[in-house]
Every structure is written in structure tokens, then in C-alpha cells.
């Protein structure tokens, strides 16, 4: 069977599985819809959290980012895993004991204020929509590359699938489809990683192959460590050594902190821990989640290093006509561009961009070709020796082709990419719909609606959210790529401190919490907007506050939040007696079922 048929089979088969699960796990009550009835096993919740957390970006882009950035990308690896330690120790068990449905629920109740609840709802919606637009787009792109349908058709198919299981099953449907999606995506990521590791180093585990010696063309041990060789090769081409960083230590420190605290504060991650039966399950479930995530996150840096070395070996100083097939294929889809600046017919790699911007072509290969049969670029050349643009997203998607792996592996990677994008999208959509139906409608605007009406409203809100997300997927606002920093920065500067103080500082009152949240938000929001949109030309180290980039500014916002909240709470009245009792109650595990009655 050819790749195309296999891909249809794999992606179609995985969809049938997701729909089957959705029908089996329909939600009958609001508790089912919001927290899957609260009866999910910690292992299943761990796998679901991992799928929820690992988006199209983790699956498709991360290994590529690492391949190009080397040590500098470590901040993503540590930042996006270290947050689970904070979750397990500081947030998840206590929020589980609290026993409500959403993050604004906790903030509204703990700070006895609908103002605090509403601020939280707005943050939830903003953070989640920023995220979800990218997921829908990711689904569309995977469809376009592997199934040769239009990107927009891909987005619509993705919407239809998510619609089916998110609207029908709510959290219950989402949880069990996410478990299935995790299995698909991890298998799809690890199979090529293992193949590549064996090919490059003879090690089955990418994690150890990463630190092993490389095999030469005949398959014999060359005696040279892979990373040592990679450092050598990239410095020869004028790049910084792979294992050395080029970012300032201060900035790396602040970015790592913003990513960790942001991860721990992201509503769609926190809410997953409301679905396990007991407090002790919430603690160990964070461990399972990190275990499942670590399978991918410890393989990705190995894949990045293998791919970078392999790429340079294959492409650098090779005559264009002698390049492998995948080079032409990805050039056809516009993700590779070659400009023969020195006219020698061979591809040269070097530090710096080959030309300005992303490749734009004069026409398809059938219409215009250059001297060696390459597609002709219209970009202005830069004045260095670099001749080739290779999009970093290719690294994972093209690995099976680069490693000459069988066709079913390529089909598997396609199904994995779609699974990663859909599972994250569904988790985010659920958070948006419950923020609207539960926090805004039931708790603020119309407290007297029945459970049936609330469930209907939740489904309605999910439908609307899917349509908006789909719209953004089809008409991506130019800012999506720019605002990833937003989601983490805002979560770190708003939710994380407020929830933490709500649990660990009994004296914290509503005045302090609201003032802290607004300060953290306003500061982080304006800093990012200023450097990303108002004056992007000033976005460089010498203009940054304390040398902290917009990616890391959430940490400063978080510190401001803590400081302001503490100061304000000292000069205003302490929280009422019953709130102090709630705090005492959530600190002990026993009686998790009863907390709902407060």
C-alpha cells in the first residue's frame, strides 16, 4: 500500500476509535461533563493530562526547535516539566480536596467575591483561546501535508471530530479519548526516534544514544561522541556550539520560571486533577502525568541532535541533483528553499539566514526552475554564505523519510500529529465552555438554573467555542505565533500566585488577591504588548527591563502579584471566619467528598 492510503487508514482508524469512545462515555450530569464524575484512575488521568498538555507544538515543533537552538532550548524542556513538581506539591491535592469544578470556582469561593471570579473567567477565556487557535491550525496543517486536502478542510474535519466527543461526552468523553490519543501520539513519536537512534548510534533508547558514539557509514563505531561531533560540525559552520547557550543566564532563569509557574497555573491542566477520586490520587497522578510527558520530553532532545547532525551530513556541500528525495518533496511544499548564491550547484549551510524572511517562490516547480532544477526564490539574499532555509517543523515530520523508514511510520506520524492537536484543543474547549456555563452563568448571572439547563448551556458554550476556534484556525490572526508567551506569562502572573496564597496563606483576603491579580496581569500584558506589537523594533536585550525578554516577564509579573497582594492584605480586614475554615479544611485529605457541601 502507498503512503497516502496508509495515512487515510491510520488517521481514519484513530478517528473511529475516538468517536467510539465518545459514544461509550456520554455525560449524563454536570459532574460528568465538568470533571468526568470524579472517578478517573490516577494512571488514566496521568495519560489524559499528558495528551492534554502536549500540543501540536510539542509533537511537531519542539524537537525542531531543539535541533536549531541546542542548549538554549533546554529552558523549554525544564520549564514545561518542572511545573508538574509545583502542581503535585503546591496545588493539585488541595484543589482536589476543595472539590469544585473549575479554577474560577476556587478563586471566587476562596476570595468570597464575584469580582475575583469574573477576573479569573476572563483570564481563562483569553489564555485558552490563544492556545486553541494554534491547535486547530496544527490539525489543518497535518491534514494538508499528509492527506493532501486543503488546510481549511482539515480544520473543519478536526472541528467535527472534537465537536462530537467534547459536546457529547464533556470531560468524561475527553478524558478517555485523551488516553487513546496519548497512546497514538507517543507511539508515533517514539517509533521514528528509536529507528533514528539505532541508525545513528546503535542504541535502542534515544536517551542513551544521545550520549553515545556515532556509527560511521559502514555501521562501525567511530569512537567519537555524537554531541562532540555535533559541536565540532556546527562551530565549523560558524554557529554557537550545540551544547553551549547564547542567551543570557538571567533571561534563561526568568523564562524557565515563567514556564514552570505558568504550566502549574494553566486552567486546562489544573482542572484535570479535579477528576480523580481522592487527594492522594491527585498527588501521584501528577507523577504519572510527568512520566508520560517525560517519555516524549527526554526523547525530543535526542531526536533534535540526531536530526541536526544527519541534516548537515546529508545536505551540506552536496550537489543539488544528488540530494535525497525528501529534500525536493519538502521544497515542493515550500518548507525548504535553496538559493545558490555562489553558483557552484552545491548546497552550503552556514550561520545566519540564507535570505530575508520565509521562502517565497516565483512559481511552482513545473513553472519556473533554476539552473539545477531547483525552485526559484524571490527573497532578497543576505550577505553571508548560508544558502538553504529548512523549516524547523520539518524535523519531526520528515524524520521517517530522512531515516528511510517504512511507509507505515509516516502514516503513524500523521495520526500522532492529529492526536496531539485534537487532544489539547478538546481540553481547552472544555475549560472555556465550563467557565461560561458554570462560572459566568450558574455562579454569577443566573444562579437559579437547573442542572439540566446548565448542562445544556455547557454543551451550547462548547459548540460556540469550537466554532470560534475553527474560525481562528481558518483565518489565523497574525499574532498567534507572537502570543504563546502570553498564555504562560499570564497564567504565571495571575492564577499561580492567587491559588498558591489561597492555600498556603490563610490571612490572604479578597482585596489582596484582586489587587495582586490585576497588577500581575496589567504589568505582564503591557510588557508583552509593548515589545511584541507596539515597538517590536525595540525587542532586544538592551531595552528589556533587567534583561528579561517578553517570554520571561511573567516571572516578574508573578513576583509583583505576590508583593502587592501581601501588602494590600496587611492593611485590609482579614477574610471572614468561614473562609479560614475552608482553608484549614482543604489542607487535610480526609473527607474529600464533603468539601462540595460548603
Amino acid at each position, binding site marked *: 500500500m502507498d503512503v497516502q492510503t496508509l495515512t487515510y487508514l491510520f488517521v481514519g482508524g484513530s478517528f473511529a476509535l475516538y468517536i467510539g469512545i465518545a459514544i461509550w462515555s456520554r455525560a449524563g450530569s454536570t459532574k460528568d461533563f465538568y470533571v468526568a464524575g470524579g472517578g478517573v484512575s490516577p494512571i488514566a488521568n496521568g495519560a489524559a493530562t499528558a495528551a492534554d498538555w502536549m500540543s501540536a507544538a510539542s509533537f511537531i515543533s519542539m524537537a525542531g526547535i531543539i535541533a536549531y537552538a541546542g542548549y538554549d532550548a*533546554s529552558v523549554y*524542556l525544564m520549564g514545561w516539566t518542572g511545573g508538574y*513538581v509545583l502542581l503535585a*506539591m503546591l496545588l493539585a491535592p488541595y484543589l482536589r480536596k476543595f472539590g469544585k469544578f473549575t479554577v474560577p470556582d476556587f478563586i471566587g469561593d476562596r476570595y468570597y467575591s464575584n469580582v475575583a471570579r469574573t477576573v479569573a473567567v476572563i483570564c481563562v477565556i483569553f489564555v485558552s483561546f490563544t492556545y486553541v487557535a494554534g491547535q486547530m491550525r496544527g490539525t489543518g496543517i497535518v491534514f494538508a501535508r499528509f492527506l493532501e486536502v486543503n488546510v481549511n478542510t482539515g480544520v473543519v474535519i478536526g472541528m467535527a471530530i472534537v465537536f462530537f466527543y467534547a459536546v457529547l461526552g464533556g470531560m468524561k468523553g475527553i478524558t478517555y479519548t485523551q488516553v487513546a490519543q496519548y497512546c497514538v501520539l507517543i507511539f508515533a513519536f517514539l517509533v521514528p526516534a528509536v529507528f533514528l537512534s539505532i541508525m545513528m548510534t546503535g542504541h535502542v533508547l534515544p536517551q542513551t544514544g544521545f550520549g553515545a558514539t556515532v556509527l560511521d557509514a559502514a555501521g562501525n563505531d567511530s569512537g567519537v561522541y555524537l554531541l562532540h561531533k555535533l559541536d565540532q560540525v556546527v562551530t565549523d559552520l560558524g554557529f554557537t556550539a550545540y551544547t553551549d547557550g547564547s542567551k543570557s543566564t538571567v533571561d534563561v532563569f526568568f523564562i524557565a520560571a515563567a514556564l514552570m509557574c505558568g504550566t502549574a497555573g494553566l486552567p486546562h491542566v489544573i482542572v484535570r486533577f479535579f477528576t480523580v477520586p481522592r487527594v492522594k490520587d491527585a498527588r501521584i497522578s501528577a*507523577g504519572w502525568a510527568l512520566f508520560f510527558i*517525560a517519555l516524549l520530553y527526554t526523547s525530543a532532545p535526542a531526536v533534535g541532535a540526531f536530526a541536526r547532525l544527519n541534516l548537515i551530513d546529508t545536505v551540506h556541500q552536496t550537489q543539488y541533483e544528488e540530494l535525497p528525495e525528501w529534500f525536493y518533496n519538502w521544497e515542493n511544499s515550500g518548507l525548504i528553499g535553496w538559493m545558490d548564491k555562489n553558483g557552484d550547484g552545491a548546497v552550503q549551510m552556514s550561520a545566519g539566514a540564507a535570505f530575508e524572511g520565509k521562502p517565497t517562490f516565483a512559481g511552482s516547480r513545473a513553472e519556473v526552475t533554476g539552473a539545477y532544477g531547483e525552485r526559484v526564490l524571490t527573497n532578497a539574499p543576505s550577505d553571508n554564505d548560508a544558502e538553504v532555509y529548512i523549516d524547523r517543523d520539518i524535523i519531526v515530520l520528515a524524520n521517517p523519510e530522512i531515516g528511510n523508514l517504512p511507509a507505515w511510520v509516516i502514516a503513524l506520524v500523521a495520526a500522532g500529529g492529529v492526536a496531539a492537536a485534537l487532544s489539547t484543543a478538546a481540553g481547552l474547549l472544555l475549560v472555556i465552555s465550563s467557565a461560561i456555563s458554570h462560572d459566568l452563568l450558574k455562579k454569577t448571572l443566573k444562579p437559579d438554573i437547573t442542572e439540566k439547563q446548565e448542562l445544556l448551556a455547557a454543551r451550547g458554550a462548547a459548540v460556540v467555542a469550537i466554532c470560534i476556534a475553527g474560525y481562528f484556525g481558518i483565518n489565523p490572526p497574525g499574532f498567534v505565533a507572537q502570543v504563546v508567551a502570553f498564555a504562560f506569562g499570564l497564567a504565571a502572573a495571575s492564577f499561580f500566585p492567587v491559588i498558591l496564597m489561597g492555600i498556603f496563606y490563610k490571612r490572604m483576603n479578597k482585596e489582596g488577591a484582586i489587587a495582586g491579580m490585576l497588577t500581575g496581569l496589567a504589568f505582564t500584558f503591557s510588557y508583552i504588548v509593548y515589545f511584541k506589537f507596539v515597538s517590536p523594533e525595540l525587542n532586544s536585550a538592551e531595552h528589556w527591563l533587567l534583561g528579561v525578554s517578553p517570554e520571561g516577564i511573567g516571572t516578574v509579573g508573578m513576583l509583583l502579584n505576590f508583593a502587592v497582594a501581601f501588602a494590600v492584605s496587611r492593611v485590609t480586614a482579614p477574610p471572614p471566619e468561614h473562609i479560614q475554615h475552608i482553608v484549614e479544611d482543604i489542607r487535610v485529605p480526609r473527607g474529600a467528598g464533603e468539601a462540595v457541601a460548603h
Partner: protein
Amino acid sequence: MKEENARAYWAANLRLILTYLAVWFAVSYGCGILLVDELNQIQFFGFKLGFWFAQQGAIYVFLVLIIMYARSMNKLDRKFDVHED
């Protein structure tokens, strides 16, 4: 549950959290970021040690920390008789 018991339980929990978070900080911000250049002088199999902590080691330690914390807390819950079921 008596108030003193609750206070002692909470204090013990806070001690555990602080201990584990100290390790959490040391492996990620310490070994992976602040001391990375010094540790990179040390070779660990085919890795420079600082680089290994930043891209592999820190993640393994995070995982071990969560498992140890969950186990310690299960014990603590029983000791202070606040466990579930």
C-alpha cells in the same frame, strides 16, 4: 481532628515541600542554568554534565521528586490519621 494535630501535620507537610523544592531548584536552576558552565567541564558519558542536567537529568529528578513526595505524604496522612478511606 484536634487543632494541634492539624497544625503539626501541616508543619510536617511544609517541611517536606521545602526539602523537595530545594532539590527541584538545585537540579534545574542550579545545575541546568546557573552552574551549567562549571558543570560542563565534567564529562558524563558522551554528555557535558551541565548540558545533560538541562536536557535530561532535571526531568528524571522531577519525576523521582513527585513519586517520593506522594509516598511521604501517604505515610504522613496515616501517621496523623487524616488519610482517606
